[in-house]
């Protein structure tokens, strides 16, 4: 059995070596099996669509084939490290796109791609801890970190005229992280945080905490909580006791049961919630949607973008050198430069050949990488509409 396997493995290696002359391999790590397997089918299809766009319109460099090799990262850091090692060492991938899931991304980045000097570009990892990795500028992602939502909401609040706010957050990782980012960003904009208190979710009443917070002269309460475990109770306590009348919050509060239990009339004009959104009216999104079967599926726009960006980075680097590709990635994604949209490979290839700067505007958003290799997310602001449901406002 071992002999058979070895022979088969050797055969596969020989095939790869023979094909290497006109193939450029990029590792495509995805949680093909495991807990999010159903979501990943469409994401992988979107990545492969980008590769076929590239190959149909002239391929990479001197007509080389853009070859995506899928590795199964299973949404498990062990599996991601295992498949990443194979992609980087056995397949000799010049770059890795993916994997899915924050934990798998974190493990693969730290123990495979960073030590090997291979740049990684994830489409679905959102954990803030990925920004903090000591990564030699080798870890990028096109999914916004959860931390961006806090900043986005602070800007919404400032634009809507709030200057003094009280903050309370459920004492869990997600909400405490959001609250910390929100408070910092709001203060930087010039606002004042009159009080900032954690609360334990699941209690029957929050009157004591709210009374303390209301002692400041806040114009409203920024509430970071899940609606079911503490959010609705805090809204009810605040309104019943006339402690707070206006509220801001994030997607943890975004549920119709909030409106049903508190009453649309009590909330209309008094509450604003932020929520991740994609700009479905943009030209880039429309260009992508015209070529993909299910453009509305979660993270498929991100999947297309990372595969297309990988090709642009290789073309810009002008070689298959891993270091050159890593440093080219930011250049092709960020402004300034000629705007390239999904599917416009031939145009991009000509521009790069002519020595022009290019700026990829992806289906998932403009994609401007910051110093950590992160992108800012697009968020929509929602209020209670006339029909008693959450309605986006402009």
């Amino acid at each position, binding site marked *: 059995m071992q002999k058979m396997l070895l022979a088969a493995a050797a055969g596969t290696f020989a095939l790869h070596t023979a094909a290497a002359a006109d193939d450029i391999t990029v590792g495509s790590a995805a949680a*093909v099996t495991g*807990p999010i397997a159903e979501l990943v089918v469409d994401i992988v299809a979107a990545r492969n669509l980008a590769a076929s766009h590239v190959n149909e319109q002239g391929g990479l460099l001197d007509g080389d084939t853009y070859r995506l090799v899928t590795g199964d990262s299973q949404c498990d850091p062990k599996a991601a490290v295992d498949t990443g090692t*194979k992609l*980087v*060492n056995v*397949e000799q991938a010049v770059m890795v796109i993916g994997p899915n899931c924050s934990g798998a991304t974190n493990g693969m980045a730290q123990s495979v791609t960073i030590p090997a000097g291979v740049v990684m570009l994830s489409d679905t990892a959102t954990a803030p801890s990925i920004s903090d990795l000591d990564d030699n500028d080798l870890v990028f992602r096109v999914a916004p970190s959860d931390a961006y939502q806090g900043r986005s909401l602070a800007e919404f609040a400032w634009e809507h005229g709030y200057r003094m706010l009280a903050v309370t957050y459920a004492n869990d990782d997600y909400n405490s992280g959001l609250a910390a980012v929100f408070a910092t960003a709001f203060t930087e904009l010039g606002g004042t945080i009159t009080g900032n208190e954690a609360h334990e979710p699941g209690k029957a009443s929050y009157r004591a905490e709210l009374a303390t917070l209301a002692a400041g002269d806040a114009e409203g309460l920024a509430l970071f909580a899940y609606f079911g475990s503490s959010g609705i109770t805090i809204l009810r306590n605040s309104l019943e006791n006339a402690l707070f009348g206006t509220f801001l919050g994030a997607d943890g509060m975004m549920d119709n049961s909030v409106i049903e239990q508190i009453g649309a009339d009590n909330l209309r004009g008094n509450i604003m919630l932020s929520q991740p959104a994609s700009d479905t009216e943009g030209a880039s999104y429309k260009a992508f949607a015209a070529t993909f079967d299910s453009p509305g599926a979660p993270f498929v726009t991100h999947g297309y973008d990372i595969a297309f960006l990988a090709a642009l980075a290789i073309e810009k680097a002008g070689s298959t050198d891993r270091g050159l590709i890593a440093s080219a990635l930011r250049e092709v994604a960020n402004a300034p430069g000629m705007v390239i949209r999904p599917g416009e490979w031939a145009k991009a290839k000509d521009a790069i050949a002519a020595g022009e700067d290019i700026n990829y505007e992806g289906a998932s958003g403009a994609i401007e990488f910051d110093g950590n290799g992160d992108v800012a997310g697009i968020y929509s602001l929602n209020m209670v509409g006339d029909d008693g449901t959450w309605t986006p406002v402009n």
Partner: protein
Amino acid sequence: MEQLYGIFLYTVFLLTMGGIYAVLTLGLNIQWGFTGLFNAGVAGFFAIGAYTTAIVTTAASERHLGGLGLPPAAGIVAAMVASSIIAWGVGRMCIRLRADYLAIATLGIAEILRLVLKNEVWATNGPRGISVIPKPFEHLAEPWNQIAMLLLVVAVVAVLYVLLERVWHSPWGRVMAAIRENEAAARAAGKDVERLRIVAFILGGALMGLGGALMAHHIKFIELQAAEPITATFLVWVMLVVGGSANNRGAIVGAVLIWTLWSAAEILITGLPPEWAVKAAYLRIFLVGLALQFILQRFPDGIFRERRLRTVSSPSIKEHSPCRKCC
């Protein structure tokens, strides 16, 4: 040339992972192979070990408990101590249960441990996991960092192998086999069956904690997805059964062989066109299952059978036997 170097690096990685699984399998061998304790909760002890060392060795972070920043060696010892304590507690509660009932109880306890680790966010960062765990030798240049890690794992496995062989051939090992084969007879011969079973359970649990700790350092990140029962419990069982239970050599060979099958099977399918990639991932699982069928049909007792116990053991071994008084 680069291709060959890449394959070499992958082989080093493959053997390192196989070695870490061998530690887990040796732990299960003490419990099931030696003593007949059906532990279906390997993942729980694995997770305790991994999280303990992560908390002890990482730098301070507002996301989780810890910030001690101790060296990995201290973390590994702490992991073994923590998983031993949990194993002791579990053993006190469940060890009297007969084999199949013990299996159900340990399965439940592993799930409880998993949920506790997931929900005690202040300590473990919940579903987000603990990042930037130090890896031994990571500051050496490639490939020496990976080779050194492999040598460390090989050394751990070798030391465990020597120790467990001595234990197995000691009077204590014979008592364990006696309990496994005929508990009533062992009891009639005056053995404190319950206490001996707890000791075996604790030893096995400590090794599972050690395996978890090594894994956490190797992949530098731990979250509960890494302690899913499929890859942290059932795969370990498959390794032991294929290698041959009650045989330490079998446990090690089974672990390395099954991990190689599990991992290398993926290389065979990457030559397929991308449209097939999603389906091919399931083909890989099918291939692994097929290979298992083949091995188990060919070697129904595992690749290495249990060896008959030697009746004579040297006085020095008796001297060091941990249980001489109770035997």
